[in-house]
């Protein structure tokens, strides 16, 4: 469950910019929501606030019934480790780790190291179609392959909420489709709440619902409570 109420975010440098203006919405568990909007509308900013990567100027932000806007950085990190998965537009894999090791990172952070976890990681690698590349390093992978690793990493802890920022933004159509299929499949398996920022219509079509951000405001065309 994601509850956002009157969320605002302003940037003060170089000049005062109000990126998000009193955003409010609620997402039920297990839904796939797509956030769209033109460039500069505040999509990535909203996503980073939801992930606790940034601090809102004002407003309330509740994830899984916890008010994360008042969390300290350490508390946010702990919350992310336990409950969130994140997929970046530019993959952000650790260059010194192999495919398998990159996927394991969230599990290692949680301290989940066991043979069962090993089995689970192998399963994930197979599911994303990278069994033949598991010992390779990010610099040896194509863009599509790197994004698949990122997807696998995001799902490794079976998170309740998965946030994705333009997951297909750097990919061609074929790879984009593959990624979306993967997201769909994994989301169905784990019943995660999926929140995807994208301007790609193909992404929006896959979603249960769409939110549109325009000049910092959520469009009033769509319902404010989204359910499956």
């Amino acid at each position, binding site marked *: 469950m994601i509850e956002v109420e009157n969320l605002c975010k302003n940037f003060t440098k170089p000049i005062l910019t109000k990126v998000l203006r009193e955003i409010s919405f609620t997402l039920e568990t297990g839904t796939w929501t797509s956030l769209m909007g033109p460039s500069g509308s505040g999509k990535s900013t909203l996503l980073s606030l939801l992930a606790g*990567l*940034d*601090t809102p100027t004002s407003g309330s932000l509740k994830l899984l019934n916890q008010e994360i806007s008042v969390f300290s950085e350490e508390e946010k990190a702990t919350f992310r480790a336990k409950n969130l998965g994140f997929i970046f537009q530019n993959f952000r894999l650790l260059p010194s780790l192999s495919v398998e090791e990159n996927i394991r990172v969230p599990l290692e952070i949680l301290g989940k190291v066991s043979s069962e976890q090993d089995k689970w990681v192998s399963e994930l690698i197979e599911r994303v179609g990278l069994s033949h590349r598991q010992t390779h390093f990010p610099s040896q992978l194509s863009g599509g392959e790197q994004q698949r690793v990122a997807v696998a990493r995001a799902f490794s802890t079976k998170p309740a909420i998965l946030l994705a920022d333009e997951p297909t933004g750097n990919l061609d159509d074929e790879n984009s489709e593959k990624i979306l299929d993967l997201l769909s499949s994994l989301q169905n398996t784990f019943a995660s709440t999926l929140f995807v920022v994208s301007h790609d219509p193909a992404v929006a079509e896959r979603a249960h619902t769409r939110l549109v951000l325009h000049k910092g405001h959520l469009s009033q065309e769509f319902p404010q409570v989204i359910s499956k």
Partner: protein
Amino acid sequence: MNFALFWFKKEFRRPQTWLLGLLMALGLSGLVFVDLFAQRISQTAEQDTRNFLSADYVVRSWTPFDQDFLENIRKIVPPQDQIQQQSLMANAKNEEGEILNIDLKAIDNAYPFYGDWILKETSLRMEDIQGKNEAFVDAGLANLGYKTGDLIQIGSQKFAIRDFVVKEPQSLNLLSIGGYGVWIHRSQLEATGLTSFGHRVRSTLYIRKSNSDAKTFRESFRKEIQNPNWRLMSAQQSNSQTQRTVQLLKTYLGLIALCGTFLGLAGLFMIFVSDLRRRLPQILTLRCLGIKDRPLLVTLLLPSVASVFIAALAGFAIAYSLEERLTLLLAQRLDIVLSGESSPLRGISLTIFLGILAAIPGLFFPVQKILQVPTQRIYSDAGGSWILSQFLDLRSVLSMATVAFVLSLILSSSLLLSLANLAGIAVLIGLLFFTSKLFLSLLPRLPIWNDFLGNFLKRNFVRQRERSLMWLLSLGFSFFFLMLGALLTHSIQSQLTIVSAEGQPNMLIMGASQDDSNAIRNIVPSNTETVPYLQVRISEINGESVRERILKGESNIDEDGFSDFRVREYFVNVRSSSELFTGEKLDEGNSLFGPKLTEDKVRVSLESEFAERMELKLDDTLLLEIAGVAVEAQVSSLRKVDWFQFRPNFFMVLDQEDILGAPLNEIHLMRVPDQELGAWQKKIIGAFPYLSTLDLRQTRDQLSQVVSKLVLSVQGTSFFLLIAALLVLFAIFVARRQELQKEFALLRCLGERSRNLSIYLVRESILSASLSWISACLLALIGAQLICTFSLKTQFFFPSWEILLGTYLLAVVLVLVLNLLMSRRTLKAPPQELFSEEL
């Protein structure tokens, strides 16, 4: 060019450019200052040797100058350019009966030629006390409460103090032993009666060079100075101990300046790497916009070269403007007044050279290489290792090495030293590289830190090989110079340390015959040490007459065209066993004297440097004159002597077994309570008025003052090295910051806590500092040993474990503090802010 200028103006407005420029300026100003200071020290030392002698040439003899000699000298030197002096060590008594050790100098009018002393009443001259029982005395006596008009008894004559002699302010007065100086007119010497007591009286002739051509003067002067009883010194020579100490300081300063140069270049290099890495996205954008390579090259080089050049000029300006103030401060702290002037032209040349020529080769070749690569290749690189490898281009390395070499030449004016330093640096980098690679290969097997972050740390080190190597190499390079400074400082300080007063002799009696010594032993404390010695002259060396060689002009020639040391009379120590004194070390030979030789041959041990000057080796033969008897001697061993040990040291040592029956004199070294010293001197002089006694406390105090000044200088210059190393470390960390920020922001995104990441940093600091310190320490030990042995010509003292541990802890703390400071924001700020900064 318009675009290049536009870009240049934009770059120069960035605060980072100014910050880097400021750091470079500070670093370079330190370097330039050390060079300016070293020049002044060098000029002061040269000036001082002239002042020290008070003349251009000095002839010294333990026998009076005969009239024939004096008349011949008058033919080439006008009477007004010659002064005769007779001097001797003696004891004087004040009105309370207290004994004073004095260095009595009975001298003609016109002394000094070049002013090695100044009287408080500056209008007074020597002729003002001619025919009077008056004396000029050392200003040190004023500090003891003596005033003008006070009477002191010298021998059987009382003299009134006329005035005090103060130190010449432009003099680098390093050492003065032998008691307080007392100057009387030569006409008054006989009245003291001292010459009839058997005191050794030294005759000195001071010569001021005539206006004739220098070469002609030297040749004609040399023809007259053939008497083997005489010792010649010229203004280029000086007391060897003083020269040695000054040379030590100059060499040390020069070395520090050179080390600082290399550190500075390393720092510049790191700044260039980080700067270029930061500008990679700009390069990509500009290329995509269609800018051609040549204008792009200029665009990239211009800001860096300009910033280095401006920083260098600023550095020079800072150093030059502060030079007078800083040297004054040093003079107040060290009591050293510097003469001479530093050369702005030299400083400006150094600056221009650093500014332009250092920047160009360092940047030009790597940038040119990068521009030859397809744009996409740059895109796909994480910006990390690949760009570093471009800087390891052979042309770039060779050109930086050439720059470093030419810089060394400017600073040291010594081709040999510059080549040796360059070779040393190349070997250093090679060895650091090798040890770093070795450590990286062993790292995965390290049986500690087996949690996620620990394994991540080890993997990072091993898998990002080039980055890790660069990191370890840079740390090792900085630590090497830190360690080198610490080790050299420790060695020089140990070399210069005077044995503590407690337990050491505080009074010396000299000139006692064996009969006197037997009587002295009944008076002095039982713990008095006796050192027997003989007076010896060398007649032949390996069958060749010393005098013949001089007459032929073939003997050791100094730079001024004179020889002196072979004809001297030497005090030779006589020992009854093969035991070495404290501060002596066998250099060649199995023992001090070896097996006994034939009946008519004696064994002699020589001091190593003395033997080198005499061109003598092990088993060479000498013909010695001992009390008028010719004795054949064979060199049985060579010894290294620590001249800074506070005890009598000798160039030559004979075995007592070989010269039974020879007339020996003895030095007695006594230790008595300080408050009883005066009473003891009175007692000894009362019983043996013709002997010389020396209050060693005074000598030790004087030496202590000198040593403490030198130690301060050494510490100061080592501090400079520390600062330079810190600046380089800072530059290294600046270069690394961006990579660390990316990784840490991502890990925090994935849920890792900042606290754990701090632990990661602590582990990384300990690991990298330890690995680098080990290699740096090993190499610095080797380097310091080589520098002490071949460059400074001093003994290398191995540091204690406390010093080693201390430097290790310093290295770890430095890296840790810098790491944590540079990562503070990365650990605290919201990850999104850190991601945004990448743009």
